[in-house]
C-alpha cells in the first residue's frame, strides 16, 4: 500500500501505535509494518515530519532518552492525542461500515 493510499490516515495510525506504548521513530515504523503485515510501504522518512507535526499540535509529547550510547527521541501520546484518536477511530469505523455496506 503506497503513501497516497494512506493519505490523511497516517496521523491516526501513528497515534494508535504510540498509544500502546511510548516509542521512538524507528520502533513506531516497525510496529506499523508488523501490525499491517507489511502492507504499509511508505517512504520511512515521511513518519518524522508527521511525528513533529503531531507534537506541535499537542497530540504527542517527546523526550530524549539514551540507549546503547545513542540519543533517541521517544514519543508518548498526550491526553489531547488520546481524545483525538478516539474521534478518529469512531469516524473510521463509521466510514468502514459504510464502505462495507456498499462494496459487500
Amino acid at each position, binding site marked *: 500500500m503506497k503513501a497516497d493510499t494512506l493519505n490523511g490516515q497516517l496521523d491516526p495510525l501513528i497515534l494508535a501505535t504510540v498509544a500502546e506504548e511510548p516509542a*521512538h*521513530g*524507528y520502533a513506531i515504523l516497525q510496529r506499523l509494518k508488523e501490525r499491517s503485515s507489511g502492507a504499509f510501504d511508505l*517512504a*520511512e*522518512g*515521511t513518519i*518524522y*515530519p508527521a511525528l*513533529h*507535526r503531531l507534537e*506541535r499540535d499537542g497530540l504527542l509529547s517527546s523526550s530524549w532518552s539514551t540507549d546503547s550510547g*545513542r*540519543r*533517541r*527521541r521517544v514519543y508518548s501520546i498526550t491526553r489531547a492525542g488520546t481524545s483525538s484518536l478516539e474521534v478518529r477511530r469512531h469516524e473510521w469505523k463509521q466510514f468502514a461500515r459504510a464502505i462495507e455496506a456498499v462494496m459487500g
Partner: protein
Amino acid sequence: MSWLDDLSGELRARRVPRRVRHRILLELRDHTACEPGCEDRLGHPRELAVSFADELATSEARGSAFATFAALAVAAVVLVVSLIALGRFAHYPGYSNGISTLLFFPALLGMVVAPQVALVAGTLAAWRALRRRRVASLPADEIGLIHRRARVALAAGFATMAGLELYVVDFSQRLPAWWLGLVGGLAAVAGVGLFAAARTLVRARAIVSGAQGQAGDIYDDLPLLGWRWLRSRPWLLGALAALAVGVALGAFEAHAEHSVVEGIQRGMFEGLAAAVGFVVLGRAIGARPAPIPVESTALMPLLTAPPDRLVADGDRARAELLLREGYADGRLTLGDLDDRISAVHAARTVSELGAAVADIAPPS
C-alpha cells in the same frame, strides 16, 4: 557525502532553525543506526527536507499570526484604557496646548488611524490562520500573505503605541502625573508584547517554503464579500469600505459630540484615511485581489465542457482576459466590456460564462 550530510545541507538551505535541524538529524541518525543501509527507504533527502520546511513554515506562520493578534489585543486594551482615563478623569487638554503641534499631529495619526490599520490587518492575518488551521502545509504564497498581514498589523500596532507615547510627551506639562505615568507605562508594556510578536514573525519568515498554490485574497477570507463582480473592480470595494468607515465613525462622532458638523468632519477624515489605507496597503494584505497569471487560450477547452459544470476563479480570470483582448482588438466597446466582465464574475456555470465570451472566443 552521506545521506545525513545531504539532509543537513537541504535543511540548512531551507533555513530550518538550528535547534530543529539538530533534532531531526539526531532522530534520523538513530534511525539509520537501527538498520544500517536503510537510507534508500527513508526517501530523498531533498523531499524530506521540503516536507519538514513546508510544515514548519506553515505552523510558524500560523503561530506568528496568532501572536500578533494577541499582542495587538493587549495594545488595543491599553489604547482604550488610556482614552477612557483621559476623557473621564484627566480631561482633554486641547490640541494646541501641548509642547508642539509637531508632536500632536503624528500622535493623533498614531492613535486614530494606525489602530484601524492594525485591526484590519491583524484580524485578517489571524482569521486566515484560523480558517486554515487544519492544513499541514500551506502554499508558500499564502504563507507570504499571512506574514505580510502580520507585518502591517505589527507596524501599525507600534505606530499606535508610539502615538500614545508622543501624546504623553506633548502634554507632559498639562496632564496629571498619574495619567502620564499610567499611559507611558502601559504603552511600554504593550510595546514589549508587540516586540515579542515581531520576533516570532521574523523567525517564521526565515523558513523557506516551496509549496505551490495561490495565496487567495479577501474574498476567500470573507464569504460575506462573495460579490464576485467586485473582484474586477477593487477601487469600488475600496470606495465602499471608505464610505462605510466614514459614515459609521462620522455618525458616532456626531452622536458623541452632539454636533453634525464635527460628525461630518470626522467622517470625511476617517473615510479619506480608509481610502488611502486601501490604496497603499490593499495589495499587501490581500484586500485587493492579486493578479492571477493567466492565458486566455486556456479557456477554450472549458467552453466545450457540460454547460452546467461549475466554473472556478481561474476560469473567470481567463474569460476576463479574453474580453480585455477583445476590447484591445476593437471587437468590443468599453460598455460591452464592462457589462460582460460583470457577467463573467457573476457566472457560476460554463453556460453562463460561455454566454459572455462565446462570440469572441476563437475555436478550440
